[in-house]
């Protein structure tokens, strides 16, 4: 198990304790049993996720730690709901790995699909997410093909569909691979993306094979900017500067 995995485990445990209004380190020790490790505890302290009292008796989540724990618990309990309600499966076993691997966007989508549930199958409270506050009715898919990305926005690549080994390696060689941030500059006549400093022109069918994470927040921000200046106007902005420079 990786280090971050351990920390997640501790954060969740601390959230449960907070729900029960417990702050004693001893209780944490008891709950975690053989997973308890003083080193992780000090890590939490160093990373500013939890605060330990000077006498080493009490432990509290910091603001930062609380928001992380909240997201983890939310994911975990939503996963339980999903497995219980939709798939009717063994929700204990499946859900415990779930919170470590999903992105906040995906969790919001699941929450929306399930109709913003308030409690997990055990009857414990599911922390509210952004989607609950907005009471979203439709879940946006989190992963979209590059062809549907808005012009001028950046996104992280989720995966690249494998058509043939050649194409995959060509893209890999240009650093177009999962986890990399790209920016879409142009979508007609060809797609032009910026990736690790290089401008790359792509065919439509190649762009279709690249799937990216839809980043809700940046997209919202861009929407505001773009409403005032759509694609073409932005270009002419560049041109205006060009003429200005000539005048200078």
């Amino acid at each position, binding site marked *: 198990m990786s280090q971050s995995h351990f920390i997640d485990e501790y954060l969740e445990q601390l959230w449960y304790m907070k729900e029960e209004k417990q702050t004693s380190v001893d209780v944490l020790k008891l709950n975690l049993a053989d997973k308890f490790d003083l080193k992780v505890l000090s890590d939490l302290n160093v990373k500013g996720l939890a605060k330990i009292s000077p006498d080493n008796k009490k432990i509290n989540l910091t603001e930062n730690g609380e928001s992380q724990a909240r997201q983890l618990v939310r994911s975990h309990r939503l996963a339980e709901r999903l497995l219980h309600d939709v798939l009717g499966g063994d929700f204990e076993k499946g859900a415990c790995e779930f919170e470590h691997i999903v992105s906040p966007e995906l969790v919001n989508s699941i929450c929306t699909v399930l109709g913003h549930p308030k409690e997990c199958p055990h009857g414990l409270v599911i922390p509210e997410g952004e989607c609950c506050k907005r009471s979203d009715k439709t879940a946006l898919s989190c992963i979209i093909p590059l062809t549907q990305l808005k012009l001028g926005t950046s996104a992280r690549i989720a995966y690249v569909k494998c*058509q043939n*080994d*050649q*194409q995959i*390696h*060509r*893209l*890999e*060689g*240009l*650093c177009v*691979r999962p986890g990399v941030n790209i920016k879409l*500059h*142009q979508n*007609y*006549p*060809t797609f*032009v993306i910026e990736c*690790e*400093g*290089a*401008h*790359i*022109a*792509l*065919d439509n*069918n*190649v762009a279709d094979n690249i799937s990216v994470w839809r980043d809700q927040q940046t997209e919202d921000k861009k929407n505001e900017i773009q409403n005032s200046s759509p694609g*073409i106007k932005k*270009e*002419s*902005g*560049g*041109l205006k*500067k*060009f003429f200005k*420079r000539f005048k200078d």
Partner: protein
Amino acid sequence: MASDKTKLEVKKNPEEKPVEEMIVKLDGFHSQFTVIESNTNETPEPANKPKPRPQSVSKNNTKTLVKKVAIIGLPNTGKSQIFNNLTGEYNIVANYPRTTIEVKRSLAKIKEQLYEIIDTPSLHCLYIHSEEEMLVRNMILDENPDIIVQCIDASQYKQSLLLTADLLELETPMVIVLNAIDKTQRKGIRIDSKELERILEIPVVESIATRSIGKAEIQDAITKARKSKSSIKYGFKIESAIIDVMSALPFEMPFKFKASVLLLLMDPFLEKSLEKKHGREMIERTRLEISRIRRQSQDKIHRDINSKRHQWVSNISNVTVKKDTPDKEFSQDFARACRHPVLGIPILLLFLSFVYLSVVYISTALTKFLEVYIVTPTVDFIQSLSLPLFWNDLLIGQHGIITLGVFNALCTVLPIISVFFFVFGFFEDSGYISNFCVLTKRLFEKIGVTGKAITSFVLGFACKTMATLNTKCLPNRKEKLITVFLISFAIPCSSQLGLDLAILSKVGITAFLIAFGTLTFYAVLAGVILNKVLKDDLSNCFIEVIPPMHLPSIKGIALKTYHRMISFLKESMPIFVLSAIVLFAVDKLGILPMIKKGMNPLIVSWMGLPSDILDVFMLSLATRSAAAGLIFNMVDSGALNFTQSIVAVVVTTTFLPCFSNIIAIGKEMGIKAAITISGAIVIVSFFLGGVLNWLLIFALKQI
């Protein structure tokens, strides 16, 4: 001696300074550096030495005599510029990917040691995708260079490090050159070259090759190149798989480790070349082993290998790159406008009219000047000698050596094409061509020319032979065939285009529009038909890096134009003179009038041209420019009217490609295809020339 000066240069900058400091220093000393440069440039290599190393010398022998230095890198990272700086030779440099499509070699002496410097086409990684990349890889694998110099443009740092990872696995001594650091610094990217040197355990040098800054450091680094042990650690699972593959390969094979990795990644080119070398049985055995490993890893091993590679790269780039906020670069905005579907069109038209006007006004002024001050006085002088008729004709007659040979080349063709070379060089160096490809991709797709092929197509306007060779990088045979055909059929090359412009501008802008409209129509028609008729053999994908645009340096373009002019004179001058002599002889022997008579129905009745135009067609077989130069003079003297000028220009442009172009087609597509294409072109060209003639006559009557 060159080496002494090299030492002096090294002493000038003995210890390596941090990046910023060095740049300031180098900038300060720039003028001094160039002075030293010009001295060393002349003597890097004794002129009388045979340039390419004789192949017969055995390998062990040459190892001690000449060390091979291969310059390798991503597209557009300045490999050729560094080659030029190191060897004092000139290999064409430009700002579009795949300027260099063939391996070029030259000798250079550094510190009393003779090196063979090898300039190569671009390479992204050792897993290859096209023929020109295969050329580089085969060069590395077969020749086993003693030293590899990798050129890195830090604006594509991670991509470059991927290649570094590959090259390190070859276990060849290496040097890394961080080129164009001035440009990358403006983009806000700073590479800690000291740290990179420490991590990779090989010399890392900073350079600005276009201003030959850092040349001495590169030379110094080449002498210090060493092997590195800091290549990727794949971990037990993958490494044991690699060892399994290695054990299936022949014992004495070089680069076994890297070859095994590539085979695990399913490199089709390598499998084929190994099959050729080591026989079918061996490759079958290896293939079995690989499919077993892939199955065992649930078909994941290639992904795992790639992840390791990327991990290695990001680990290094994390500690060696500092990113500042980049200067907002106007050139990138402009580049975006150039390929924008709406804004790109006026920019394109602006550029085209710039080409037209500069060629027409500057070059015709030049030719007129030369005509008045050189041609006329000389001809008059010879006339005044009142030589016997035979000698008079041989020198200054219709097919005279001086008039049709020397002056046609020097005073008519050269001024026109040098202006065109200069303008074209501007486009090449600015990086506009790649953006043009993006802009026009959809249009070109309609005529079966897709993606990469557009670059080759555009290069045809400079030189058809070069453009034809450039089609090497096209993976698809159908696309290649269409591109090769269109290049040799409908595109005028630089000398032709320059002269065509000059000729048509004499007749008027309408003639220009009609002639080039016709040529465009030809290209579209031929493209559409070929696209429909030919069968697609492979669906391919277009993935291409667009080089950044920048204002090109006038010095660089002037140098390039100069070298192109020199090579034009070297190659064409003898042909000009020789073809004049041949025409003269054929004329005197009475064969030419006979052919003229025989061809009359075709030339005079069908195409409406004067029978003297046959000289032009015969000259075209030797070189296009000589023929066009002759038309230029015919129009000048009023021998051709409006319709005839247009028909003559269109027919000579489409008529049989020049000899070197036919050779190039043969090289790329096979002899059979070359003959078929040439034959088809001649027939189509004469046929359409006649059609055009009658259409024009009909249209003029209507008006």
